[in-house]
């Protein structure tokens, strides 16, 4: 039955898993690239503060730093969950 086993054997599905894991982490890295080092920390601290009042997801907080000629804009957006506010 050796040859049948061989035919049945499928390639490892691990490449797909790796691709998905890398896709997520690269997207994460790109979103913070070029920004100052404190951005991820700022994001996490803001998230903690917001979570005191509203139950938001980690992904719901977005921080962007845009550079225009001569000035920088720190943009913060929080997607609040549907339904009534907690407060």
């Amino acid at each position, binding site marked *: 039955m050796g040859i049948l086993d061989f035919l049945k054997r499928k390639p*490892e599905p*691990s*490449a797909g*898993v*790796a691709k998905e*894991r890398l896709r*997520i*982490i690269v997207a994460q*890295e790109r979103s*913070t*690239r070029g920004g100052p*080092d404190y951005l*991820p*920390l700022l994001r*996490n601290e803001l998230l903690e503060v917001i979570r005191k009042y509203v139950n938001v997801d980690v992904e719901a907080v977005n921080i962007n730093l845009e550079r225009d000629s001569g000035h920088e804009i720190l943009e913060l957006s929080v997607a609040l969950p549907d339904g009534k506010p907690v407060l």
Partner: protein
Amino acid sequence: MTEIIVVTSGKGGVGKTTTSASLATGLAMAGKKVAVIDFDVGLRNLDLIMGCERRVVYDFVNVVHGEATLKQALIKDKRHENLFVLAASQTRDKDALTQEGVEKVLDELVKENFDFVVCDSPAGIEKGAHLAMYFADHAVVVVNPEVSVKDVEEILGISVVGVIPESENVLAASNAGVPVILDDNSNAGAAYKDTVARILGEERPLRFLEPVKKGFLKRVFGG
């Protein structure tokens, strides 16, 4: 007593991180309290091999610079509660580590009663590699088998602590973010289990010394 082990080699791509992940996991499986630290600042990889990349909030550099406490930065392994990962930053410069900062982190791990600290060294002989080995009690040198096990012992004057056969399971394990030592069906996993037992003082004969087929390579390392 905390034992600090550095996993090192000047050459890249020989399996330092794979080895660090498996040794740390194996030591934790033996009931030891273990921390594994990624010293490759700017080229994080250990967190991916350990499968905790999405749980990295603070990293080694943050702790060294006092931006986070060690407790905040240590990531508890999903599978073993006595195993912790300290990830490397991707964004920082590789000079972000300082000798004083590293010493402070290691001192704190000693105070927290860790049995083992595994330092995953970057390739090369620059600052990161230097700091990874500076405070270590033991070194595990990972090499590819350009020469035989016997020659390695003779030339380097250090004893072989394990021979890891080349295996497709290593790639699959890295892809999945599960250290290969947890793969019970692979020779590489079995070889890492032997290696961990030897590090813990057990005597075990070397296995997998002969290639099983043409093109088969093995990794040899001594400590």
